[in-house]
C-alpha cells in the first residue's frame, strides 16, 4: 500500500480533489432524505403546500449536484489512477530491463508479460473502485450513522444489531477469499506462460502433430484455473448475499422495535398517562421513519458494494504483491557507484584466469587467460559449446565472472558504467533481434547521434544497399515483429550495420555472417576488413576460412584456451587448430 502511494503521490492533487468531491456528493446525497423528511413532516402532514415547491427545488439541486459531483469525482480519480499506473508500468518495464541475463534464464517471458499488463490492470480496477471510494464509503457510513443516532439513537442501536454479524463473517471469509485468489493468480500465470510458449512454437506443434496433446495439457491448466476461480466465486456469493440479507433483517428490527415503541406510547396514551418514550406518537414522526429507512438503504448500499469491492481489492492486492515483488527483485548486475569515466580508447582487453558457469555445477570457462592489444584482430575458434560466445557475454557483463577478472584498458569491467561498457564493445550477435518499424529505424535505433545518413553509410559499407534495393520500400521497407518476413541473412546484415553505426572501440562478431551466402560474405569480408582497421576486433566463426586474416587465433576447447597464435604458427604447431583445420578442409568426405 505504502509503495503504491509512492506512484500515486505525484498526482495526489487529483486524489484530494476527488476525495473532496466525494465528501461533497455524499453530503448532497445525505441531505436529500432530510429534505424529504422535512417535506413530509412540515408540509404534507400539515397540508401546508406553500413553500413545498422550494423544498422540491432543493431536492432537485441536491440530486443534480450529486450526480455532477459523482461524474467529476470518478473522472478525477481515474486521472490520478491512470497517471500513477502509467508511471508504475514504465517503472516495472525499465526495472525488467535492468534485471540481469540470469533472471531471464530463469523466468519465462509469458509470465513476465502478465506482470506488465494483466497485473497492473488489476491495480487499475482497484483505483476505479478502490482506495478513495472505500475511504469515501467509510466517511459516508460514519455520516449516516451520526445522522441516524441524531434522529433516534435507540432505534439506531437496534438497527445496528446485525453489523457485528457482518463484520465477523467478513473477517472469516477474508482469509478464504485471499487464499482462493492467490491460488487463482498463480494458476493464471501458469496458463499465460503455457499459452505464450505454445503460441510461439505453434509451427512445431503443428508440424509434429502435437495438437491433441498440447490441447489436452492446455485444457488441464485451464480447468484447474477455472476450479480455483469457482472457489472464490462461492465465497464472494455468500458474502454478498449475507450483506443483503442483513439489510432486510434490519428492516424487521426497525419495525419490531419502532413499532413496539409506538404501540407502547399508544397504550400509555390510551391509559391516560403522558408519553415518556419515543415512537410514532411521540418523538418519531412518519417523516423521520421514511428518512430513517432511506438512510438505512444508503447505509447498506455501500456495505453490499463494499463486499464486492473487497474482492476487487483482494485481486488487486495479490496483483500488486506480485508486481512489487518483481520490483524488489534485485537480480541486477551491480554497478560501480563511482564508474570510471574516460574517453573511448583503443580497447586493450585482458582476461585473467576467468572462471564462469551458467550454473555452479557446470563451468563453461575453466580459467581462461588472454590479452588482446589495442587494434589487434583476434579470432576465437573451437567446437560448438567450447565457450566462445560466453567470452563475449562476460566482456559486456551480461554475466558476472565466478572468479578471475576482465579488464578493458586496464580497468576492470566492473568499474565501468554498464552502458558505457556496452557502448565501448559492439557485438554483432548470432541471434538477431529486429524491432517492428522499418529497416533504417532498426539501424539507428533512436540513437540521437546517428542520423539517417550515418545509418545509411554504415549499411552501405556492408553492401546492405544491394539487398535493400530489392524491396519496394528500400530502407523504409517495413520490418515486422522480430524481423518476420526478412531472410536470416538480411536480418544479420541489418544487425551488423546497427553495431557499426555506433562506432564502438571494440568490435565483436559472433557468427555474425553465418546466414549470409558465400558471395555476399566475400563482399562482407572486405567490408569487415575495412571496419576492423584500427579497431580491436574479436571474431567468432566456425568457418575457418573467414578468419585467416586475423592477427591471432585463440583456440577454445571445453572451456579452456588450448592454443593461440597466428594461422601459420598454429598450423605448424599441429595442435587443435591444425586438426580443426584439417577436418574442415580435407576434401568433403
Amino acid at each position, binding site marked *: 500500500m505504502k509503495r503504491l502511494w509512492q506512484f500515486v503521490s505525484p498526482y495526489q492533487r487529483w486524489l484530494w480533489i476527488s476525495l473532496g468531491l466525494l465528501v461533497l456528493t455524499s453530503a448532497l446525497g445525505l441531505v436529500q432524505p432530510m429534505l424529504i423528511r422535512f417535506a413530509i413532516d412540515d408540509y404534507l402532514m400539515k397540508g401546508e403546500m406553500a413553500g413545498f415547491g422550494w423544498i*422540491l427545488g432543493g*431536492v432537485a439541486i441536491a*440530486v443534480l449536484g450529486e*450526480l455532477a459531483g459523482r*461524474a467529476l469525482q470518478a473522472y478525477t480519480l*481515474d486521472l490520478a489512477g491512470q497517471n500513477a499506473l502509467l508511471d508504475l508500468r514504465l517503472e516495472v518495464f*525499465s526495472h525488467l*530491463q535492468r534485471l540481469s*541475463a540470469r533472471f*531471464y*534464464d530463469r523466468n519465462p*517471458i509469458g509470465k*513476465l508479460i502478465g506482470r506488465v499488463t494483466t497485473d497492473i490492470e488489476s491495480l487499475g480496477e482497484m483505483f476505479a473502485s478502490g482506495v478513495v471510494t472505500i475511504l469515501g464509503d467509510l466517511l459516508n457510513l460514519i455520516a449516516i450513522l451520526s445522522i441516524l443516532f441524531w434522529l433516534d439513537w435507540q432505534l439506531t442501536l437496534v438497527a445496528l444489531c446485525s453489523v457485528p454479524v457482518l463484520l465477523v463473517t467478513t473477517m472469516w471469509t477474508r482469509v478464504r477469499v485471499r487464499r482462493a485468489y492467490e491460488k487463482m493468480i498463480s494458476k493464471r500465470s501458469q496458463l499465460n506462460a503455457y*499459452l505464450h*510458449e505454445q*503460441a*510461439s512454437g*505453434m*509451427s512445431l506443434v503443428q*508440424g*509434429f502433430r*502435437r495438437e491433441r496433446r498440447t*490441447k489436452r495439457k492446455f485444457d488441464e491448466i485451464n480447468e484447474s484455473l477455472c476450479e480455483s476461480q*469457482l472457489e472464490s466465486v462461492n465465497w464472494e456469493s455468500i458474502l454478498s448475499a449475507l450483506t*443483503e*440479507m442483513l439489510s*432486510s*433483517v434490519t428492516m*424487521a*428490527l426497525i419495525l419490531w422495535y419502532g*413499532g413496539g415503541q*409506538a404501540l407502547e406510547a399508544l397504550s400509555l396514551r390510551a391509559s391516560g398517562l403522558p408519553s415518556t418514550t419515543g415512537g410514532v406518537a411521540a418523538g418519531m414522526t412518519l417523516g423521520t421513519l*421514511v428518512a430513517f429507512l432511506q438512510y438505512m*438503504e444508503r447505509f447498506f448500499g455501500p456495505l453490499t458494494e463494499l463486499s464486492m469491492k473487497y474482492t476487487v481489492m483482494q485481486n488487486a492486492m495479490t496483483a500488486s504483491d506480485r508486481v512489487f515483488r518483481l520490483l524488489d527483485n534485485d537480480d541486477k548486475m551491480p554497478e560501480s557507484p563511482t564508474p570510471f569515466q574516460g574517453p573511448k580508447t583503443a580497447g586493450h582487453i585482458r582476461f585473467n584466469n576467468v572462471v564462469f558457469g551458467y*550454473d555452479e555445477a557446470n563451468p563453461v570457462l575453466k580459467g581462461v587467460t588472454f590479452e588482446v592489444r589495442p587494434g589487434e584482430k583476434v579470432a576465437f575458434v573451437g*567446437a*560448438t559449446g567450447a565457450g566462445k560466445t560466453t567470452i563475449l557475454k562476460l566482456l559486456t557483463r*551480461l554475466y558476472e565472472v565466478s572468479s578471475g577478472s576482465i579488464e578493458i584498458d586496464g580497468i576492470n569491467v566492473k568499474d565501468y558504467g554498464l552502458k558505457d561498457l*556496452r557502448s565501448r564493445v*559492439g*557485438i554483432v550477435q548470432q541471434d*538477431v533481434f529486429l524491432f517492428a518499424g522499418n529497416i533504417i529505424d532498426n539501424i539507428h535505433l*533512436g*540513437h540521437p547521434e546517428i542520423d539517417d545518413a550515418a545509418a545509411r553509410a554504415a549499411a552501405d559499407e556492408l553492401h546492405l544497399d544491394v*539487398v535493400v534495393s530489392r524491396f519496394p520500400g528500400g530502407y523504409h521497407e*517495413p520490418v*515486422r515483429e*522480430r524481423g518476420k518476413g526478412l531472410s*536470416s541473412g*538480411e536480418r544479420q*546484415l541489418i544487425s551488423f550495420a546497427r553495431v557499426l553505426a555506433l562506432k564502438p572501440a571494440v568490435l565483436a562478431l559472433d557468427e555474425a555472417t553465418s*546466414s549470409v*551466402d558465400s558471395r*555476399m560474405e*566475400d563482399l562482407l569480408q572486405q567490408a569487415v576488413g575495412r571496419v576492423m582497421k584500427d579497431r580491436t576486433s574479436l571474431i567468432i566463426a*566456425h568457418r575457418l576460412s573467414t578468419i585467416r586474416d586475423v592477427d591471432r587465433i585463440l583456440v577454445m576447447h571445453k572451456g579452456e584456451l588450448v592454443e593461440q597464435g597466428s594461422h601459420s604458427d598454429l*598450423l605448424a604447431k599441429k*595442435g587443435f587448430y591444425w586438426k580443426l583445420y*584439417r577436418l574442415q578442409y580435407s576434401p*568433403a568426405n
Partner: protein
Amino acid sequence: MRETLRPLLPLLRRYRRAYILGTVCIILSLWLKLQIPRYFWGALNDLRDLELGQSEFALEDAGGLIRTAAFWILASALLSGPIRTASRILVLGNSRKLSRDLLEVIFARLLKLAPSFYERNPTGQLMSRCINDREYVRGLGGAVYMYMAETFLMYALTVPLMFTIDVQLTLIAIAPYPLFLYLARRIALKIQVTAGAAQASLGDISEKVDESLSGQLIIKTLTLEEFDLGRFRERCAEFKRLNLRTTRLRALLIGTMMGLGGLSTILVLGIGGERVATGAMSLGDFGVMLTYLTMLAVPTRTLGFVISSLRRGTAAFERLREIIDSKVSLKQESDSLGDGIGAAALRVSGLTVIYAPLSEQPHLTGSIPLEHIGGDSDVSRTVLDNVNFEVPAGTTLAIVGHTGSGKTTIARVLARMLEVDPGMVFIDGQDITSLPIDELRSATGYVPQDAFLFGETLHDNVALGSPDAGRSDVFEALTGAQLAVDLDQLPSGMDTMIGERGVNLSGGQRQRTALARVLLLSPKLLILDDTLSAVDTHTSDAILEHLRPFAKDRTTILIAHRLSSICHADNIVVLEEGRVLESGTHAELLASQGWYASTWSWQEQSRVESDVAAQLEAELNADFEASQKPKEDM
C-alpha cells in the same frame, strides 16, 4: 451488437439449466425483497390508523399485527439469503465456466491456424486477447447478466406493484425513462468504440513487452534500453489516453442514469405529496411509492454500469471473434479419395508466391502498425516466380542462392507452412492443397533455421513428434545429429530442462536438437533449411555424413550456403530473385560455367589455397594426431 454476440450463444446454451435456475433464484429473491416494504408500510399504516383512531383493530391486537409483519420480513430475509447466494454462485460460476470454454474454443482454433497467421499476428497481441479481452467477455456471462436480470426484474416486479397503488403517479414516475435511455444508448455506443480501441492498445503494450523481453540480451548489449523504453512509453501513453476517455464516457453515462432516478423521485414527491396533502392518497401508499422509487434508484444506477459493460464486452468479444473466425486456410480433411503419400516424389510446376500488400493481408486489428498500411512500401512483392523442378522419390535436391533469393519460401511451401494456390506443388502426383494436412505433416520433416525449444527436457524436445519413442531411439537420433557427444556437458543428460527456463544451449546445439527431432520422426520427405548454419564445419560434415544413408530412401530437400556440403545432391537448383537461374547436377552446373560454377570455384579456391600447407604437413605428421587425443578429452 446482437449480431456480434451471437457466436457466444452456443457456449451459453451449455449452461442453460444453470442460467435458468439462477434466473429463477434471482426472481425469487427479488420478489421476497419486494415483500418487505409491503409488510413494513402496511404495518405502519395500521399504526397510523390506530393513532388516528380510525382502525378497525383493537389496540390489543396491534402488537400481534406488528410482530406478524416483523416476522414475515424476517422470514423473507432469511429465505432470500440462501436463494441469493445460489443465484450468484450459479450465474457467476457459469461465467467462469463460459470463460474457460471460450478459451478452449480459441486455443483449439489457434492450433489449427496456419503459421502465416502467426507471422502476421504477434504472440503478445494474441495473448492480450486471450487474457484481457476474454475477461470482459466473461463479465457479459456473469456480473453483467446478473445485474441486467436483477435490474429488469426489479423494474418488472416493482412497476406493476406501483401501478396497483396509483396508476397516474406511476406513469409520471416512469415518464422520463425513454429520453434518458436514448441518451444512455448514444453514450454507450461511444463507449464501445473507445473501449475497443483501449483494448487494442493494451494488446500493443503486451506485444511490445513480449518483443522487448525476448530481445533482452541484445537490447542490453546494444544499450537500447532507453530507445526501447521510449517505444513502450508511447504505447502506454496512448492506452492511458483511451482509458481516460472511456472513464469520461462512463461517468457521463452513470451521471445520466442517476439523474433519471433523481428526477423520478422528485416528480413523485411533488405530485404525490400534493395528493397526500389534499387527502387523495393515503400516507401509507405514498410511503410505499417512495420506498419503491428508492429501491429503483440503485438498479437505475446499475443500469448505467450494465449498459457500458455490455458495450465494452461486445467490443472485447469482437476482438476475440477475429481469432475464432480466422479462416483455417490449410485443408484439414481430404475430400478427394487420393492414394495417400507413398514414396514422396515431388513435382513443383510454376510455383509463384506473391506477398500481398500488408493492408490486404488478413490480420487482427492493430497487429500491423497503421503507418505501414497504405504507405509507399505497402505494395505486393513477388517472392517466387514460376519455379519448376522435380524431385523423384528417394533423391536429394539442393537449393542454393543468394540471401533473400526465396530458398526458405520454397521450403515453407513444401512443408505446408505457407499456403499456395492449387496446381503448383504435387506429391506423388497429388496436389498438396488437396491432401489432408495431417497426412502431409506426418510425412514431412521440416527443420527450420531458427530452432525453437519448448521448456521441457531435451528428451521430450526431441520426442516432440514421437511420444512413443523409447530412450534408446531418442539417443540414436541425438547421435545422428551429433548431439550425443554434448550430453555429458549437460547436468542431467537427456533429462536436462532446456528452453526458456532451462540450460542455455548454444545456437548450434539448438539446431542439432531440432534436427534430432526430425530424425526421430523418420519422415518420407525431409527438408533441411540451412539447418546447420550455426554448427561448426567439422560437426556439420559429420552430420551430413550420417544423414547420407538416412536420406537414401527418402526424398530430401537441402538448403545451404556452403556448396561443398550439397555437391553430392542428385539435383541442384540455383535460385535468384525468386526465379530458377540454373539447375542440374554438380558436374553439369560446373560445366555450364554459370553462377554455381563461379561460386564453387570461389569457395574452393579459398579452401584449396589455405589447404596447401596443411596438406603437406598432414603427410609428415600422420601419427601426430593420435598423440593429441588425450589432450582433447580434458
